[in-house]
């Protein structure tokens, strides 16, 4: 019996102790008509057989050299990260409700919070949310709660990832928060700070500032944050954590700094895995901590004055406050935060800075090579971090399919989400990409574009 330790003798003894004859007698309180459905799953298998089958299925995946980003990035992950994170003590523990027997998880999360807060130059980080997109939605709900007038209107630039904007819509819709989308400057591929004047006096609670934005372009975060500060609008920074190795942290934007910072932590040691599990982070100022959603760990002392860690401010959470909680979140993405903590400890500030710089340079090199292919050009002017938008002379989805047959994932076609960029392709090269791979991509693209097209 898979994973069930009972011997027949023991089962008999236990049934006898309960005064029943069979296991099924234990279900006598369940109405008989509810029992006995059919469950036509395949029969159970041994580990050996399942392993064979899973290897076969894994073999149906095909490795592609990755030039796609758009919210998920292939980075180097030190071997130590997951060799430690998967230790049974981390992996098979629950949310640390009994603090004294969960100091491992709690201290890691405290260290995680410290690292993330420090990276964002804000005072507080929670202990993770589901992913970057849901973190943005939670940040906006929080922004509405902390906004002085609790205005129910938020500014969401179109330079925020389309997938993120969809999640924001799903999660904000029931609360009837109105979402105003801000267009982008067609030359620069970023928000034009001068155009924000249109939203003044519009009862706006929050402004989202993606840095870098979905197109890889850098937003004028100082000017934008400055505007928000003047309007009493809560600034919600949406940042790529690797970029923070190089770029000005949200806490230093404008004069006062952004109020909230969120994003997806996947670039910190989390494998791509087809899209998850990743984790979301959310940082804020100390003054807003009571409106923060999610778990929060604090350092404290025990009866003998020894240092220890506990979950804190639980009155924000659903298990205490129920319908009045700051969020319904319970289980978060703790193990991913654990891995990210180890990852950051290994990278250190210099490792992070150089990794960011490498990604930046690699993408620059990639763009240089690709725009040398006839008919390919860059769409936007201005600085970018590690992604860029190109215009192709052929339909990007079709080009991507042909690249895929050469084992290259060439980027992300933008047309579906940005009809005005029907020819647009979003490309990315991280520190993992080699010169040879960039060259192979350029050559493949060159050949594909030279092929006959129907």
């Amino acid at each position: 019996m898979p994973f069930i330790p009972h011997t027949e003798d023991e089962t008999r003894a236990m049934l006898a102790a309960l005064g029943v004859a069979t296991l099924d007698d234990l279900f006598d309180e369940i109405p008989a008509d509810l029992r006995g459905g059919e469950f036509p799953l395949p029969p159970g298998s041994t580990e050996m057989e399942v392993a064979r089958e899973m290897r076969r299925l894994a073999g149906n995946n095909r490795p592609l050299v990755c030039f796609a980003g758009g919210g998920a990035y292939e980075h180097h992950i030190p071997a130590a990260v997951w060799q430690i994170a998967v230790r049974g003590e981390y992996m098979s523990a629950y949310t640390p409700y009994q603090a004294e027997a969960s100091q491992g998880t709690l201290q890691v999360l405290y260290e995680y919070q410290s690292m993330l807060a420090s990276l964002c130059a804000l005072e507080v980080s929670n202990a993770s949310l589901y992913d970057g997109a849901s973190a943005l939605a939670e940040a906006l709900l929080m922004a509405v709660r902390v906004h002085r007038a609790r205005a129910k209107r938020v500014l969401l630039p179109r330079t925020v990832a389309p997938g993120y904007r969809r999640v924001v819509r799903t999660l904000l819709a029931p609360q009837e928060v109105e979402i105003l989308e801000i267009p982008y400057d067609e030359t620069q591929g970023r928000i034009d700070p001068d155009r924000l004047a249109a939203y003044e006096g519009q009862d706006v609670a929050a402004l989202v500032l993606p840095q870098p934005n979905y197109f890889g372009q850098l937003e004028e975060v100082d000017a934008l944050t400055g505007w928000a500060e003047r309007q009493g609008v809560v600034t919600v920074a949406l940042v790529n954590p690797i970029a923070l190795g190089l770029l000005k942290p949200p806490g230093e934007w404008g004069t006062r700094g952004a109020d909230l910072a969120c994003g997806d932590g996947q670039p910190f040691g989390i494998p791509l895995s087809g899209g998850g599990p990743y984790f979301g982070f959310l940082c804020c100022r100390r003054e807003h901590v009571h409106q923060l959603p999610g778990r929060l760990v604090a350092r404290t002392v025990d009866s003998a004055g020894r240092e220890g860690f506990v979950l804190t401010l639980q009155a924000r959470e659903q298990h205490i406050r129920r319908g009045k909680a700051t969020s319904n979140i319970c289980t978060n993405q703790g193990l991913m935060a654990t891995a990210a903590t180890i990852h950051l400890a290994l990278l250190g500030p210099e490792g992070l800075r150089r990794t960011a710089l490498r990604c930046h340079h690699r993408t620059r090199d990639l763009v240089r090579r690709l725009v040398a292919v006839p008919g390919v050009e860059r769409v936007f002017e201005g600085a970018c971090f590690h992604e860029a938008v190109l215009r192709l002379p052929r339909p990007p989805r079709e080009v991507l399919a042909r690249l895929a047959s050469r084992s290259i994932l060439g980027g992300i076609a933008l047309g579906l989400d940005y009809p005005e960029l029907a020819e647009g392709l979003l490309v990315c090269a991280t520190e993992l990409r080699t010169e040879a791979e960039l060259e192979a991509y350029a050559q493949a693209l060159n050949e594909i574009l030279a092929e006959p097209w129907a």
Partner: protein
Amino acid sequence: MGLIFDLSQPGRRAGVQVPAQPAEPPEIPERFLRSAAPRLLEVSELDAVRHYTRLSQRNYAVDTQFYPLGSCTMKYNPKVCHALATLPAFLELHPEGMEWGGQGTLACLFELQEWLQTITGMTAVSLVPAAGAQGEFAGVAMIRAYHRARGDTARSEMLVPDAAHGTNPASAAMGGFRVQQIPTDRDGNLDLEALGAAVGPQTAGLMLTNPSTLGVFEKHIETIAAIVHAAGGLMYYDGANLNAILGLVRPADMGFDVIHLNLHKTFATPHGGGGPGAGPVGVREPLLPFLPLPRVVREGSRYRWLTEADCPDSIGRLLAFGGNIGVLLRAYVYLRLLGKEGLARVARYATLNANYLQKCLIEAGFTAAFPQRRAVHEFALTLKRLRKERQITALDVAKRLLDHGFYAPTVDFPQLIPECLLIEPTETESKETLDRFVEAMSAILREAESDPATVRTAPHSLAVGRLDEVGAARRLDVAYRRESEAAVPEPAAFPGNQ
């Protein structure tokens, strides 16, 4: 143990993790750049490995201790599920490349959808929610969308039993509903009269866990469903307790219209010290158009994600990508191992263990919250007598259990049972372990007589004693700050170190 930050030294590095110094500066204007390196920690690789390895040893976990945490189904997480879900071919897959590179992954997810439909009796399943609570949100959002699609905008109220898990009312609120609480009767069933009085044209639905969080099966489930349906409401099933009836009863047959499952409970995926989990949702036919995206479809021999173009009425997306796929793959492997015949076995032995343990603890002198009822896969004790006679709380007993080498049951939930311990042994624990747990509980009961102070101040044998939670909230130290923030020094010429 010190913090990792205490090991930091300016200039120290995990050498092989740091790329070579780039020759060129970034092509980024100054105003976008950091003025100083982030104030992270600087440690060696051995520092980090040793610190996080030792820290891990400060956890109790299923792999090291019996973990009878009620409502959490802390069963054994098979190592093979981890091994197979982390095959490189599954890990090295960009979400935007799934169509071309991820056919193997999509095939697994498709089959998992089908199996979860079979297990729950639902018409269709979306795997996307990242945890139970996100599944609940998706569920209530679908209920909202369903009523609106019928033009019925008056249904603004969600019914939730008083014993419900906190996420239920919280999710209902996030879903835009007013929460109406329904009381429990003395047998642990929902108060039918109160329910009858509460339903009406404003009722969007009822969120129910069955077996309930009180550790009993809701006997009148069919009547309840009839009442709610008659009032035009929908039935929402919180699947956190599915372990009790897996392979025996399908939620659909109990009258539920929308469900979520907790794969990190019933389907043995590891809880990771707080996630990631997975909270797939399933619906009956009428709610199918509203399921969250994406879902996997098979078209001939190929698989693809369904998008907004396929499902215009979907409540939309909950996550940027397709869900906690790594977790889903683990559950898929688990189901392959269990198979058809393994499902009911889980429920049977989980129930056997809980009933046996309840029986033994009652014989040892503890009071069950519902002694008149059959326990399901978990059961509740009430320690109100100990509280009254010895000023020993459920929390004290829980902490003392840690000294005996057991993790503690769930404390003070459900809130309506005074001094409650909710105990869930799961099917993967042996009779010997249960017997040892009974011994420990008996020893604590004796100690409550002989030396109550020791119980009240437990734990005594762990690396830390009882921690000050009140002080923690008052002082609120939630992030380490360095006294003096030392700058990262420039590399310099150095003797003997080419």
